[in-house]
């Protein structure tokens, strides 16, 4: 569905992504994991058009979308759900939905129809329609953000750290909502720090490190790996010294990109 080939991108002087290759299967949930600073969120920023790649290709169902503007990419069928804090807290829930249909603003009927359809799937949209989004609980906010992204009937939904700062109940809501998004027909590409959460939710897992993909497998296979915690936890005593060298390499890359 989405394919990245040799993607290179960054901010200012450094390249955060150094040749990322990644393919996302239609209808699947794919989760990108990896340590801080590996470039996970940057991958999403490039796909959603917030950041122009320096090199490489991004294709959606075979058509190139690299370097196009965010509204164009939304129209093409990819929507990103931002990290916590991307909800418009001063707007009502209903208004958030309307803004979600920004690129469809000439087609009011369609927006209206979509909001009605989504309210069936996510009852809270109807129940709290007139309330300020900022007054909702953490999990409820996430539902609104997910629903907001679905207004444009995207083929692909990008999730950036969907459980960041959420309590367990809200995380469970995110889990179910993501499954729901998938069942509504969308392909999901997500970035998640909470590795087990992400891999239990996903069909496929991708491990990134230092701006590259170092491992891609089914989520189940990744979860079953004995060196799982070493991969994501940094060097725990259990992981032992083997992980140390890798850890230090990572730190030095991070220093290089920050210096």
């Amino acid at each position, binding site marked *: 569905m989405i394919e990245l080939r040799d993607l290179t991108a960054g901010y200012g002087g450094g390249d955060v992504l150094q040749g990322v290759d990644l393919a996302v299967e239609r209808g699947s949930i794919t989760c990108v994991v990896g340590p801080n600073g590996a470039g996970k969120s940057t991958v999403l920023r490039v796909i959603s058009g917030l950041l122009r790649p320096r090199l490489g290709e991004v294709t959606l169902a075979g058509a190139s979308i690299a370097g196009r503007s965010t509204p164009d990419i939304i129209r093409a069928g990819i929507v990103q759900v931002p990290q916590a804090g991307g909800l418009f807290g001063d707007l009502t829930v209903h208004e958030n939905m309307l803004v979600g249909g920004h690129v469809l603003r000439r087609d009011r009927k369609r927006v209206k129809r979509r909001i009605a359809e989504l309210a069936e799937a996510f009852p809270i949209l109807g129940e709290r329609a007139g309330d300020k989004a900022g007054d909702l609980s953490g999990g409820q906010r996430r539902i609104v953000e997910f629903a907001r992204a679905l207004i444009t009937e995207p083929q692909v939904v990008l999730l950036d750290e969907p459980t960041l700062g959420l309590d367990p109940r809200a995380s469970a809501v995110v889990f179910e909502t993501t499954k729901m998004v998938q069942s509504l027909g969308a392909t999901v590409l997500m970035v998640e720090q909470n590795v087990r959460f992400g891999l239990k939710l996903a069909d496929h897992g991708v491990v990134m490190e230092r701006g590259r993909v170092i491992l891609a497998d089914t989520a189940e296979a990744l979860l079953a790996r004995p060196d799982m915690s070493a991969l*994501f936890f940094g060097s725990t005593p259990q992981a032992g010294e083997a992980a140390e060298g890798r850890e230090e390499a990572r730190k*030095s890359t991070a*220093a290089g990109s920050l210096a």
Partner: protein
Amino acid sequence: MNRAAKLSLAALGVTLLALVPVVSGNIYLQNLLIMTFLLAVLASGWNIIGGYAGYISLGHSAFIGVGAYTAGILANRWGVSPLVVAPLGGVAAALIALSLSLVTGRTRGAAFVIVTFAMLELLGLVATNWPGLTGGADGLVLPLPSWSVDIQNWPFYYALLLLVVLSVLMSIAIKRSKLGLGLVAIRDDEDKAAGIGVTTPVYKAIAFMASAVLVGVAGSVYGYYVSYLDTSALFDITLSVEVVLAALIGGRGTVWGPVLGAAILQPLIEVTNSSFGGASAGAVRLLLFGGLLVAVALLLPRGLLPELERLARRILRHREPSLTGARLADRPVPEFLRRSAPPVAADGTAPPSLLSVAGVSKRFGGVKALDGASFSVRAGSITALIGPNGSGKTTLFNVMDGTYRASAGEVRLAGDDITEWSRTRRAFAGMGRTYQLPRLFDSLSVLENVAAVTDEFRLRTLLASAVSGAEAERATELLEFVGLGDYVDARASELSYGQRKLVELAQVLMLDPAVILLDEPAAGINPTLIRRLAGLIRSLNETGRTFVIVEHDMHFVLSLCDPVVVLSRGTVIADDGPQAVSSDPAVLEAYLGDDFVAEDIDAPVGAAR
């Protein structure tokens, strides 16, 4: 250019200017220079608050009016020359500045702009509407000068020239002093400045008074020069615009920039006045000033002098010491840090708690970042504070060091309840803190960054040279201790990320702190530096210094820290030795995936597959 050359050049300039009235009897030229001096004094004064401290004043010309009326009224009452009472004009201006400092004490930039503007307009209205004092709209006539016509405007000329010299000297003195260092620190990062012991409200008040006092004196002289005080002319905001413009053109925050700006701007004003007659002269002038303000903001935001300096530096290509040359040899902990080390508890008795938080909560709107967090830090320990992203570690640091006030709960330091203390007071009490992304004062040198730290407030040393004496030695010694001895003269902005972290550590050590909070010290720096940092922390700890460290790098944490406190969702879920914590299943779950979620979602996952 070295100091002696600068000094002789300045002396030459002053001498030449002093000779002008003697050599040439041209009244027009004298008037032009008098007006230029006046603007230079104004712009120099403005620069102390607007340039050094970064608080833009739009009402600085009010101090001209205050000085003029103070001297004029007193001279008429007491029957003396306004020149005699001119210093009182300065005192009056400084007192008004002091009273307005009540505003600057509590608010940031925008409020200051508004309040200075309001002050100017209000004082103008008071002067107009209080005829008993000021003569009101009819104006106030001052006695004619008593001296011989032969010497023309000499007394005004020399008085104002003297004030220009004094203004520049004051600018230099402040720039070189602890006060000046503190003001630049405030401009670069006011929160950080408060955290390293800069008593920001006092510094700002002093700066505002200093920026007003000579302007007030100059106003007294100017009032006598025009001999007729008219409220609309003396409280004219156009003059304030000229002041800001002069300082911006020359270069905010530089010593000579405002003077240069005045020297460029005043002739320009005279030219527009003489080329356009009557009413349209005023209009053209407004258009010119306004246009120039916009143009300078867009095209020359830093001003002429800094741009020239940059150009010169690029041509001369200063060679900076390279990163790779950094010496990383271990050095012993400086002597002054050893001496003041808090005592380590004798064997057998549990060391006392030095820093503790009890039931601390912090809400941001509806989000609860901290939810009843409690733990205590034993004196002499290296305590780690770990937890997954978003668990509230940095928020807890911000509550401990006084950046945030806790919504509930209590923070204690060495037995004192410090929950309501200001950041500066906590710094004085021995708490130092570094940041995840090191916060340095980018317009200062590395040495100045460290020397800007003060561990107690002393009014009398404010004017002491910024980097001198025992403190400069201490700062240098600390920079050598952290391995940056070769970088003392480098700009903070030129350092690499890792080096910035080390400078920030040196800053904190200047406070001679009992407890040091480090926010992700190992993040983003290379392994050699991480090891070096761990060594520094260990040797400082051996002299009895207590550390609290927020860190993601588990190897760093587990090899260095004991105990390890684990924070999850705003509460402490574990507080134990490193071995115990790293095998605690609750901790692993908190990091790798939450227990609750993992169990709760197993079923639906199974069903879906």
